[in-house]
């Protein structure tokens, strides 16, 4: 499902004394099946953009096309239910999407709400909770009586249980332990590849954006100021600093090594694995000359 934002502007509490403009003229194209990361400093408008992707927020100016549904300012739209079924959002704070009595019921709610029989919803929920590393004993607990990372896992399971076509992730790894972080990011990537899931990831981890995304957009003060491949985005450190962002840790490290060697590697290494490979290749060459 293609998603296109056209000249989207958004103001919170419009026409009140508390009006707060959060987006200015944002254009963004997210083709079906792509993995789009959105990065940007605190308050730059990332979560506001995300909430437009399933029409939780409607633009105050401009429009969004989600598949074949067009969402515009001040226009009622009957197709939003369909959109919400296909576009699953994991919110920045998991508490904002948990509500049911037990963890199991919470994960089952979405599918059942869209007509999946209880039995099937239950087996999906159990399978997903396993996949997300939730201990079995939490299934009958209230989702609010969990640790922060456990809540995050329940919220993710609830969204995946809907089998969405588009997966929208707002800082999905905040609060996860390092292993959970890696396993769950790999799980999203696997779904993206195997099921062709269109994936939109908002993250403060330059490392995750570099590793997983096909394309990266930079938000800065409510505007989308730059869009490109990870290679393009991370080749210019100065520009990132202007947007109050940084290079991924392994690119920073690559630069330190290059400075020490007085020599550059042929490409920007976006992962540690790639960096180790390139260094090994270079050393082999050095030995041979």
């Amino acid at each position, binding site marked *: 499902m293609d998603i296109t934002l056209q000249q989207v502007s958004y103001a919170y509490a419009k026409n009140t004394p508390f009006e707060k403009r959060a987006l200015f003229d944002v254009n963004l194209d997210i083709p079906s099946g792509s993995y789009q990361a959105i990065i940007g400093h605190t308050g730059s408008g990332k*979560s506001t953009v995300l909430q437009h992707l399933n029409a939780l927020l409607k633009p105050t100016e401009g429009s969004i096309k989600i598949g074949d549904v067009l969402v515009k300012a001040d226009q009622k739209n009957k197709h939003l239910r369909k959109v919400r079924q296909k576009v699953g959002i994991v919110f*920045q704070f998991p508490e904002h999407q948990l509500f049911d009595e037990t963890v199991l019921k919470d994960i089952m709610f979405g599918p059942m709400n869209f007509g999946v029989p209880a039995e099937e919803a239950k087996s999906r929920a159990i399978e997903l909770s396993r996949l997300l590393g939730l201990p079995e004993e939490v299934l009958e607990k209230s989702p609010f009586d969990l*640790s922060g*990372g456990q809540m995050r896992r329940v919220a993710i399971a609830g969204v995946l249980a809907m089998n969405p076509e588009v997966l929208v992730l707002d800082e999905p790894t905040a*609060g996860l*332990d390092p292993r959970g972080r890696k396993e769950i990011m790999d799980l999203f990537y696997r779904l993206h590849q195997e099921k062709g899931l269109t994936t939109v990831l908002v993250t403060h981890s330059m490392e995750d954006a570099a590793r997983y995304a096909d394309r990266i957009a930079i938000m800065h003060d409510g505007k989308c100021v730059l869009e490109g491949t990870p290679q393009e985005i991370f080749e210019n450190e100065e520009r990132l600093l202007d947007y109050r962002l940084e290079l991924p840790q392994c690119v920073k490290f690559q630069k330190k090594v290059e400075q020490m060697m007085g020599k550059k590697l042929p490409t920007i290494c976006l992962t540690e694995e790639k960096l180790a490979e390139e260094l090994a290749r270079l050393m082999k060459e050095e030995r041979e000359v």
Partner: protein
Amino acid sequence: MKSEIISLQEVTFTYTEEEKNIRPAVDNVSFTIYEGEWVAIVGHNGSGKSTLARLMNGLLFPQKGTVRIFGETLNEQNLWETRSQMGMVFQNPDNQFVGATVQDDVAFALENNGIPFEEMVERVQQSIEKVNMSSFMNSEPHHLSGGQKQRVAIAGAIALQPRILLLDEATSMLDPQGREEVLSIVRKLREETDLTVISITHDLEEALLADRIIMMNQGEKYAVGSPEEIFLRGQELVDLGLDLPFAMNVSRLLRDQGIELVAEHMSEEELVNDLWTSHFNK
């Protein structure tokens, strides 16, 4: 030796007392933290870290064992006095906002502590400025972005000028620069005062900055030591759901590629130096 500031003795806490088969959230944990120390608490999701934080600031009381703060056992009587000297940032800042505006929220605890009005106004402004939120003084805390909420929560904690700062994943939603800013605020406060910092974190690079690390596993204290002592356990940590610092991970990958290194490195600088001396400076 510095004086003791927080001490847990054989502390056990279970949320659901009636269910006997459930493992305690915190199980027979003892440790002592000294004044002026920076201690990081790490461990997998559900290992009991936030429960420890709640036990240390008296939101929860243990079923077994004692929590001693400033040398006194924490109880209902000295709870408020203790809290007035402990700035805490919760894992989800939404759970701690009480004021209708950012400045009211930051002022709240100061008002409760009877800080004179003028001093209060000044402290509130200064702390909000420190976290770069001055242009949001009159915004409603719940209507901020995720990272802005965390900044406000941090401002509230430092405005108290506490003796202990207790941070529960307080920077999890900040951008890399924001994280760096908060760390430098903390560093600066430690230079100016004898502040004790307890920081719960999944960010192992941040844990590396601490004087000591307490590692939790399934409710139990698994290990305590300097960052070097903890991270030299290597694979053992990975098996328990943690990770190793960046430089150690890169070292591993380099070794897998047949690049030899003379030692185990925690910092990037050490690793770069090793690469230089063993491979390039020949």
